[in-house]
């Protein structure tokens, strides 16, 4: 019995091709069942995310299995030919799936969202009764491997984007962010993304000040915050914990001289300044004030890069762990994993086989 995988990913195909093949979540179970219903295929799981579309099937023969896959996909209007598509068989499929769910094949190395996406895809296939003994065992093992990789290595450690680095730093300063007020100076895209990441952690309120007041109002409405007139932002500054600067001003919008008396009036409550503007909005000298922590775009990017380095350094450790599990799984497949003589495939509509 062979396990096969046909697919494309961000490594092999441009976004134009990936979006053509993307299968909506609502159709993944149905398509899995169509594949599993083919006489040359026994089980199937369809995984489709923004970075990959992969069809996992079980078949008695590799060539017949891939042929069947291509035929069914063609019938669905999906021509899965060309260099953008990869084909993998049994041991390589096991290794590939373990790497995918562990985040080693992701665009952002070590990201954890993929595990949830694959779990959903598997669940959809299972509910559609498109899976049985082999793929159940494979996917359940893959989820355990992903968990082990995450707990035993530092592959998910640190923040690898400017936004998440800012959130992590804010948490190291304030602990929980639920009591924090955020002020955005300059309604740019990066500041919106960063504020969005902070908002996702439950910050108390968001103030937006922009030279174009309409733009401030629009962003404030979008984020459920309050718009301020740009020339009045300093009046509301006393209660702010996190300041995000991203104006197009050619000079510093906030200077050390302006901030010094404000910090005294704040009774030394810490202030986290995130300066995303170039030229910079915030005087670097404010970092010398007690309780003020200033990070510009370069320093946030450096943190993200450092975390990525740590993750890259963990790759070998992850791969060694995965190899061990690939060996265990293929051993199982060679012995207990093969169907009993004459038992054939479980056909769609038969009772689901949840166990192994």
């Amino acid at each position, binding site marked *: 019995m062979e396990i096969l995988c046909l697919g494309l990913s961000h490594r092999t195909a441009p976004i134009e091709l990936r979006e053509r093949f993307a299968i909506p979540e609502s159709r993944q179970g149905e398509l899995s069942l169509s594949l599993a219903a083919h006489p040359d295929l026994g089980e199937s799981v369809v995984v489709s995310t923004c970075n990959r579309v992969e069809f996992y099937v079980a078949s008695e023969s590799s060539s017949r299995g891939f042929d069947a896959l291509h035929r069914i996909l063609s019938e669905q209007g999906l021509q899965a030919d060309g260099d953008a598509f990869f084909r993998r068989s049994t041991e390589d499929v096991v290794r590939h799936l373990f790497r995918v769910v562990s985040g080693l094949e992701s665009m952002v190395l070590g990201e954890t969202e993929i595990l949830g996406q694959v779990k959903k895809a598997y669940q959809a296939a299972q509910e559609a009764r498109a899976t049985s003994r082999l793929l159940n065992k494979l996917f359940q093992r893959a989820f355990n491997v992903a968990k082990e990789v995450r707990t035993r290595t530092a592959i998910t*450690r640190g923040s690898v984007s400017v936004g998440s680095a800012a959130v992590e730093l804010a948490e190291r300063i*304030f602990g929980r962010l639920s009591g924090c007020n955020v002020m955005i100076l300059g309604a740019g895209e990066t500041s919106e993304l960063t504020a969005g990441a902070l908002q996702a952690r439950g910050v108390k309120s968001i103030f937006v000040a922009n030279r174009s007041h309409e733009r401030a109002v629009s962003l404030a409405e979008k984020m459920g915050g309050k718009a301020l007139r740009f020339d009045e932002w300093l009046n509301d500054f006393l209660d702010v914990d996190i300041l995000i600067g991203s104006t197009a001003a050619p000079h510093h919008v906030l200077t050390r001289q302006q901030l010094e008396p404000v910090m005294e009036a704040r009774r030394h409550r*810490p202030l986290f300044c995130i300066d995303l503007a170039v030229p910079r909005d915030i005087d670097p000298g404010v970092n010398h004030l007690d309780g003020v922590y200033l990070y510009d775009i370069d320093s946030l990017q450096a943190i993200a890069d450092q975390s990525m380095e740590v993750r890259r350094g963990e790759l070998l450790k992850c791969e060694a762990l995965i190899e061990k599990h690939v060996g265990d799984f293929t051993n199982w497949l060679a012995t207990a994993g093969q169907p009993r003589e004459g038992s054939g495939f479980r056909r769609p509509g038969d009772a689901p086989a949840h166990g192994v």
Partner: protein
Amino acid sequence: MERITLAISTLCFLAGFALSVHALRARARSSTPAVLWVTLAGFAFQTLWLSERGQQAGRCPLTTLFDVLVFLGWSVALLYLLAGATYRLSLLGVFSSPLVFLLQGVALLMPMPVLSRPMVHVNPWLELHAAVSVVAYGAFALAGIAGVTLLVQERQLKTRKLRSFFYHFPSIHELAAANRRLVYIGFVLLTVGLLAGISRGMAHLGLLRVVSLGVWLLYGFLCVTLGSKRISPQRAAWLTAGAFVVLLLTVWAVQIASNG
């Protein structure tokens, strides 16, 4: 035999430190049972040692620098065990074990003073004064640790050089709160101890009375300063760390003067 009991306790705290560091590296979200058991074992051996020592002396075992160091370690361990799981796992908690290890390690390097015959008449108020004061000193020790941790955290944030352990540090806000609360707790305990001593017979102990009052005034000043929020958490951290160093030097000086 006594020395062996204390040595076992000291090794337990060393093991507790190693296990805590391991738990942090594994990014455990709750205190591991092994750390708690090892600390409990260390605390039990400490208690056994202090109890034996107390029986020999016929009073609270706080008559020599050796005893004071062990008692101080005991109070730090007591606060560690009474505090919640969050504290135990944070670096603040991790630092408790090496502090106890250090205090007892220093004690073990000294010759253990032979106690004279048990005292027949013991003033329980004086005993209460001594015991509660040393527990207060334990709280001040932890406040000092919180202060140092805050300063290390602050430095990393300011210089933007974030080491891997940075992510395991409690936040600046939490450290500042812990620093403040521990000083308040210690001060309340110290006040209780001082009142017990002053009201019942401490009046004749000239040097000790002056030192106790001096420490009480020092931490009273700290309480007022921290409560007013007129200084930044960073300066408060320097003050609590510095105050604890002064406290240790004072304890040492009193012991030297008493023995001299």
